[in-house]
């Protein structure tokens, strides 16, 4: 069974780099990613088309209750970073990590989908989206993505996404949600201002989760883990 994804390409900047990236992604053979059978960019119609294997399982969005405990969260993070390291090593950034883009297989192993698609999407349009479940929603985006500062996008951008996901799993709500941080801004505005919650009325702070979030959710990339080895080291100490 396969999944076919089509979409409009809003920007053709760095087309050569995008093509190289697409080729690399097509060559990926890893249980952490669906196998890509076809990935095409049509310059004339400004559309992309991906045909990839269907992955059995539930999205992390639908499995959140299974990952509430810090040890389960860090075990998941450990698997995710192992998978993501494969693309980070190739200088590729996922750019759109969120619970909807992670499928938990029946074996418990995560599979990361929609890899590289965010590369083609116009973020200016995204920032106007308020739905938390739309494709490439900005509520999991790092500040450099929201600022459209493409020069700053590197694996540390994905670290920010992992920071949000881990804290959301722990709290049960989005950590930048104005309802829990207690302000009237939107989630995106709270991300831009780096205002987030580490606990709620029903969930008390956990030192490991707090430390991980504090390090990954920094506004400036240089304040986060510098590379995935440092990220992995931290995660493995918590498992």
């Amino acid at each position, binding site marked *: 069974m396969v999944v076919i994804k089509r979409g409009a390409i809003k920007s053709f900047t760095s087309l050569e780099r995008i093509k190289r990236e697409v080729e690399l992604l097509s060559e990926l053979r890893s249980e952490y990613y669906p196998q890509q059978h076809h990935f095409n960019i049509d310059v004339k119609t400004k559309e992309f088309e991906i045909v990839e294997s269907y992955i059995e399982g539930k999205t992390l969005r639908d499995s959140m209750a299974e990952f509430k405990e810090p040890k389960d969260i860090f075990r998941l993070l450990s698997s995710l970073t192992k998978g993501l390291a494969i693309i980070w090593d190739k*200088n590729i950034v996922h750019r759109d990590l969120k619970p909807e883009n992670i499928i938990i297989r029946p074996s418990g192993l995560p599979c990361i989908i929609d890899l590289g698609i965010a590369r083609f999407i116009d973020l200016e349009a995204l920032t106007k989206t308020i739905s938390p479940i739309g494709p490439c929603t900005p509520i999991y985006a790092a500040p450099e993505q929201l600022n459209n500062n493409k020069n*700053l996008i590197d694996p*540390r951008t994905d670290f920010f996404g992992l920071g949000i996901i881990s804290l959301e799993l722990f709290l049960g709500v989005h950590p930048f949600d104005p309802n829990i941080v207690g302000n009237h801004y939107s989630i995106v505005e709270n991300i831009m201002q780096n205002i987030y919650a580490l606990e709620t009325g029903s969930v008390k702070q956990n030192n490991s989760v707090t430390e991980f979030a504090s390090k990954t959710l920094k506004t400036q990339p*240089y304040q986060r883990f*510098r*590379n995935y080895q440092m990220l992995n080291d931290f995660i493995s100490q918590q498992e």
Partner: protein
Amino acid sequence: MKVYHQTGFRDNWNRESYLNGIGDGLIFSPINIDADKLLGFDSILKVNSFLDPQLYLLNEAKGTLHTYPYFPGNLKPDFSTPDLDNSNLQIAQLCVDYQVANNFKYLVIPTRYNEDNPTSYFIQSTEFFVLPFCEYVRGNNINKKILLSVIVKPIMLSDEEKRNEALNWITSHQQVDGVYLIFENNFNSKQIKDFDYLLNTLRFISVLKENQMEVHIGYTNTEAILYSIAMPDSISIGSYENLRSFGIKRFQDIENSPMRAPNARLYSSKLFQWIDYQYITAMKSLLPSYEDFFDDSEFKPLMFKPEFKWHFAKPEPYKHYFYVFDNQIKSIPIEQICRIEKLKEDLRSAITLFKKIENVVFLDDNSNGSHLPTWLNVINAYQRELDN
């Protein structure tokens, strides 16, 4: 913390000192030493050392730079920036191969000097130098640590946006192990006395250390000991002032430019100061124990003989500095907090000693330790930030 010899003109003084056990390695300077001559050096001089590739001005063939295979002018006459589009891979290969052939401790990614450092500077540096360099190292399974050379302009320290841009760029390269930092120095005074500049420098180094990068600081003068409290991995010692303070003029092929002979000076670790020899002569007349203000070394007896003719071209004052400053750096405590307290104590002692000297000998601003109160204030401010 290690001490590297920043070599340049009269690099034989550095090599001789290093072979006598002073310093932990050398930073070789292509404009001052022929590429083949460097290849022929004994490995003992190179195995703990590294090369400063000096592509700062791309096609400026100062000194012996043109003898290096990666010098762009050798690939194409009148090489200019647009040529990097097609030649960056070749330059990277030649630059890596030359460094590997010398078996240096580190491989250093070149950097260019840019007067204004626009945002495109970082993008181009990545495209033209960092990526091709790292990809070639990786593709050829070369197992050596990689240092990124970076010229830190004063605005990158003082302006938050520029600082963030520089730090985000430096820390973005996953395959780079460390950084060879060169702080551009536009100060007129011989010692740095600018509180904000020094504090921001300490912060800059700290961020890189927090990112677990090796931090090697080139072109340092005595402020290196102040930088030590931010826990860099190494600082440098150099003979002439242009090796203890980075200025791009050293790499420009300016014919018939006026040369100014510097006054000979002697460094004192007790005073954290180079003292103009004319004041040493005055101290000799006015202070009975004047020799005690200066460190002992094998060169001291000769320099303090009445017949010694002080001159900037004589090796003794510089070799004395290498020996004394290396010892001073090696004697600092390993723990950061102990290092800070020891430095504060030593700086206070130096200020007291200056008071004794200035009771009878008047010194100018470049010899009187006027930088010391600022250094103490910088340390206090930095320490407060650490405590918070």
